[in-house]
């Protein structure tokens, strides 16, 4: 054993790459699940995605970009592909049977996961810089989540007598059901970066300057919250509205001009967007699908039921923004 470490050596770095490899493996399992059911396009999509997750640090960015576009085309094409049905009904009946025997034991891992995630995160933050390995403080929550997910999964597999491979397949099936929308947050983040690089914010802010009292800091932060809600109603998706409103109002007016706290602004602002989601028929999954599912005649019944919660909460959120952003 060589105990002497030369001073020039950097401490080993822990980053998220192992988590990305695990994710890639999960995507690989999804691909196998698809191939087994003759979903060739879908399977290729997941396989490409998995490959990209592992190889991204080593490939030239132009190649990654090209492969991202290619996998989006695959996802698009796979949309029309129909997979052989699985035995969902049977599984449900079996689940009801098993849950009788297992009962509260099923609840323990569900509670342990978030608790362990937060615990590991807090420990990592506390020991940052004082241990034999280095890591970025920003990575701490996700390192915590990855470790907690693995530890709790293995413990649950032992306690509930399930093979870990079986649970990977179950997870893969859920992922396959969600399909390409799983990529949306990531693509919207990429879109946000391109907007930032292209100067969309400045171009929008120029139009605001003449018509809006930009020198009032409370008016600016209120504008941020209300625009999040309105643009979300227009787009049907708060994630898509966020990069636009951040670029147009959040960064130039609230952060740069009035020195507001960008973190509080973004967190509460996103939730203003969610108030918009409650009020728009474009958020079909939440507002239109239940109408069909619950056999309701009035297409807008769910939106009508939600509108006063949404408006009160939006008012409250704008109040929170005014109080908290300029602490």
């Amino acid at each position, binding site marked *: 054993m060589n105990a002497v470490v030369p001073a020039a050596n950097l401490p080993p770095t822990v980053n998220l790459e192992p988590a990305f490899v695990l994710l890639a493996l999960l995507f690989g399992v999804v691909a196998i699940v698809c191939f087994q059911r003759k979903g060739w396009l879908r399977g290729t999509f997941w396989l490409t995605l998995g490959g990209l997750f592992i190889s991204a640090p080593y490939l030239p960015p132009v190649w*990654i970009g090209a492969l991202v576009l290619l996998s989006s085309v695959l996802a698009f094409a796979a949309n029309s592909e129909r997979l052989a049905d699985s035995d969902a009904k049977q599984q449900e009946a079996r689940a009801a049977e098993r849950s009788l025997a297992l009962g509260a034991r099923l609840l323990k891992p569900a509670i342990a996961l978030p608790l362990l995630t937060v615990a590991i995160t807090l420990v990592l933050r506390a020991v940052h810089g004082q241990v034999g390995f280095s890591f970025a403080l920003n990575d701490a929550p996700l390192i915590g989540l990855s470790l907690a997910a693995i530890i709790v999964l293995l413990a649950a597999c032992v306690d509930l007598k399930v093979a870990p491979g079986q649970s990977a397949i179950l997870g893969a099936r859920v992922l396959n059901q969600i399909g390409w929308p799983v990529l949306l947050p990531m693509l919207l983040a990429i879109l*946000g970066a391109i907007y930032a690089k292209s100067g969309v914010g400045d171009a929008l802010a120029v139009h605001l300057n003449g018509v809006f009292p930009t020198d009032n800091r409370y008016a600016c932060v209120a504008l941020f919250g209300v625009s999040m809600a309105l643009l979300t109603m227009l787009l049907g998706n708060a994630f898509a509205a966020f990069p636009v409103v951040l670029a147009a109002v959040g960064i130039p007016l609230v952060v740069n001009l009035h020195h507001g706290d960008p973190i509080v602004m973004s967190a509460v602002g996103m939730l203003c967007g969610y108030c918009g989601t409650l009020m728009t028929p474009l958020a079909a999954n939440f507002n239109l699908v239940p109408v069909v599912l619950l056999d309701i005649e009035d297409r807008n019944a769910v939106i009508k039921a939600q509108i006063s919660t949404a408006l009160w909460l939006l008012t409250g959120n704008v109040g929170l923004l005014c109080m908290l952003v300029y602490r």
Partner: protein
Amino acid sequence: MSVLWGVAVLIVGMMLRVNPLAVVLTSALTTGWLAGITPLALLALIGENFRDKRFLMVFLLVLPLVATLESLGLREYLKRVMAARRETTLVSVLSSYFLVRQIASACGLTSLGGHPQSVRPLLVPLAESAAMQRWGVLKKAQIEKLKAFCAGTDNVALFFGEDVFLAFGAVLLIQATLKDYGIEAEALNISLWAIPTAILAAVIHLIRIRRFKL
């Protein structure tokens, strides 16, 4: 030409309900092109950002655990617990569903509820029988109003619970987008600032449940 046409592509595409994947990529390519970025540089920009934003997907690592618990009947267990409660007034049915759903979402268990999984098979029947105890036989319009309110209760509890979980997509998206402007934000910090709104949402919606009349 102004880069704002790229934003217009996003807005029009989403409003016309074109596949979001296609809309987002078209908007990205248009905006970059209008800003004078060469096609190769644009591909590289997409590639770099894909590489640096992979962390947005790490939350998917909990899926095997969640899927396993669900296949073993976690949902059915919670259904039994809810259904076995003695006092079943409409207010208590809706409030307890709301709180369980919001707290579970805040723990990252967003798929425990939902319209197909629990609103239709669990919440609506419980709410209907509780409402009939109070108002007698219900008219069709009343039943529909009740169903819509049940669906809305699920939505509100989900939306304003999930943001509290530090590995939820929105939290990570905020982290990634702020970074483009040189602002370092910690996921834990972002998710903590979702708590005041979560409490506010619970207060507002629970008051509405209390005042709900058919």
